[in-house]
């Protein structure tokens, strides 16, 4: 049977690999040779699952959204990753990677962050383990995600502004990679999404796969079946989506829907809708779909949501798109903001603006009344309150 998982060289179809300068080779190679073995070690598994349970608060609920379902005349479940400690799914991965870093004997952690959720999750696990933490964040994102910057600082992390390029997530990633080049021996780079050179996309997807594993069990309990008709998630780099899809990738009867940020419109020149605008290329060490000029220069993306403001997608998602396994839909800033407000009013849940893009699917795509649709509610909206205030003049 065709598999949508990474092969042993980190390829998903034609996408993936490790397109890295020699300066990064030893770091990535050390990780590549060890990550699967470490993840299989009983002591690793035990500590990982214990922390997910007692520290993160897993399993997160699978909530049947009654009023939302009624409005759209279909059965909508929300996987409540917003209830994870630190307020988003990101912590599943940072817990895994900090334990990995410890096993590899690293004593310094670097990370990049867009919305700040991954930065907060990294700063949190570094505080938990007493390890030095440096988070790179675009200057523009620092301005639009002030509460998360404050959180990272309270947690003892140093937040370093990325001042090049578009001053957003892409540039923060460049800076973090440069830091790693300059500190190859003692430093582990905790990448926050299913992007970057092999083995990161596969490793991060495995850490996030706890989401779909729980969905299967919970759906069995609630619906008497493990498989929903559709799993919906927003995709920037795509880590929450990879986690929500993971155990369904090779189950063709489960529809996979990926929601990207169209920004001010796919063809407005201010967009982050990679599947619609991207071509095969190389970004941050991975061959994937990438927004770029004809000349191969990486285009500066735009989205109201800092977490989706990235010009590429992870190679798994590029493959899901190119192979037709996944259905890709782009949602504008406006549609996303209204979907966020709607969920707040209908269900009493204020979602992160990233997740609001996924929620906007219901205005844009019809489902059957008996379809079971699981939306991964990747994060909570507290960090985005100022954006909601400004947008709706609250």
């Amino acid at each position, binding site marked *: 049977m065709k598999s949508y998982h990474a092969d042993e060289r980190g390829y998903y179809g034609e996408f993936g*690999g490790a397109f*890295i300068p020699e*300066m990064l080779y*030893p770091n990535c190679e050390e990780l590549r040779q060890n990550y699967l073995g470490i993840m299989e070690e009983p002591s690793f598994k035990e500590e990982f699952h214990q922390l997910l349970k007692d520290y993160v608060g897993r399993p997160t609920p699978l909530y049947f959204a009654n009023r939302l379902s009624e409005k759209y005349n279909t059965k909508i479940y929300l996987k409540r990753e917003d209830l994870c400690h630190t307020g988003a799914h990101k912590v599943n991965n940072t817990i895994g990677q900090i334990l990995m870093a410890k096993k590899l004997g690293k004593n310094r952690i670097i990370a990049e962050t867009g919305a700040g959720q991954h930065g907060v999750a990294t700063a949190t696990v570094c505080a938990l383990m007493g390890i030095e933490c440096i988070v790179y964040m675009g200057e523009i994102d620092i301005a639009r995600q002030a509460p998360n910057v404050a959180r990272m600082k309270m947690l003892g992390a140093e937040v370093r502004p990325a001042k090049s390029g578009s001053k957003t997530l*892409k540039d923060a990633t460049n800076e973090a990679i440069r830091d790693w080049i300059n500190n190859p021996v003692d430093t582990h780079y905790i990448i926050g999404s299913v992007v970057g050179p092999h083995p990161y996309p596969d490793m991060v997807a495995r850490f996030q796969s706890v989401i779909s594993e729980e969905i299967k069990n919970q759906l069995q309990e609630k619906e008497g079946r493990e498989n929903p008709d559709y799993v919906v998630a927003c995709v920037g780099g795509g880590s929450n989506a990879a986690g929500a899809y993971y155990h369904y990738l090779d189950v063709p009867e489960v529809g996979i829907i990926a929601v990207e940020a169209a920004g001010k419109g796919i063809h407005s020149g201010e967009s982050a809708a990679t599947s619609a605008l991207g071509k*095969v290329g190389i970004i941050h060490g991975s061959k994937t779909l*990438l927004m770029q000029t004809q*000349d*191969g220069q*990486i285009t500066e993306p735009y989205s109201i949501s800092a977490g989706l403001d990235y010009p590429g997608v992870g190679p798994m998602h590029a493959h899901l798109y190119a192979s037709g396994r996944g259905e890709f839909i782009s949602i504008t800033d406006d549609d996303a903001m209204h979907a966020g407000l709607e969920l707040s009013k209908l269900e009493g849940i204020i979602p992160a603006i990233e997740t609001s893009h996924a929620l906007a699917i219901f205005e844009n795509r019809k489902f059957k009344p008996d379809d079971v649709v699981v939306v991964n509610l990747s994060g909570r909206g507290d960090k985005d309150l100022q954006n909601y205030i400004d947008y709706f003049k609250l």
Partner: protein
Amino acid sequence: MNRIKQKLQEDNPPAGRAGKILSIYFSAGYPKLNDTVKIIQDLEKNGVDLIEIGLPFSDPLADGPTIQESSTAALKNGMNTALLFEQLKDIRKSVSIPLILMGYFNPVLQYGVEEFCAKCEEIGIDGLILPDLPLDVYTEEYEPIFKKHGLINVFLITPQTSEQRIKAIDDASEGFIYMVSSASTTGAKQGFGPEQSDYFERIAKMGLKNPQIVGFGISNAETFQQATKKAKGAIIGSAFIKHLTANGVDNIGDFVKQIR
């Protein structure tokens, strides 16, 4: 014969040079869009042995701030792959030293690897340095194309590269190995310490079939001499770009004279 190989095999280097190669890197299209050809001509006139012409990229992972800024400025000036090829089309009428294009893989991929290599051959480019094109991908997918067009692909090694991998890189290399002086991005630092000396010594003792040229951290006569004590030559990038930023394309000779 490929000009890089020829240069590295020269038995009688010009007097006073003691056989050490000086290679200079600059970003095409910087400081001004049309400076590329004049810089190449002046570097050759002033006795530089090898030139690396940087193809600017928006997200240069291995570069420090100086080269990144020159790349960004070059892109803003309007530099792109097609234009660089256009600027270089007659370069062999006036310049005979080896020319290497250095850039990141994505612009080459978008141009089309085969088309890119064919164009290089047509112009008289001798080699490519593409730091993010991995050894295995090169040998499996692109080596025949590079060879068909007479292009040498230059690989990097660093102090962290394992002995086994250095040997594999040596096997896959022709011309020279680009020896990155320290765990760093590009950009001049103050001299080399005992750690670098040990590394230079260690590599020299390996008896590789390809000579090594040291890059990263070379900015003046002192660092040039330190770097070339054991190696065949050294590459200067950021320090030359700083010179261009301050002086434009004038006084390139003064810069070269300071080095050796």
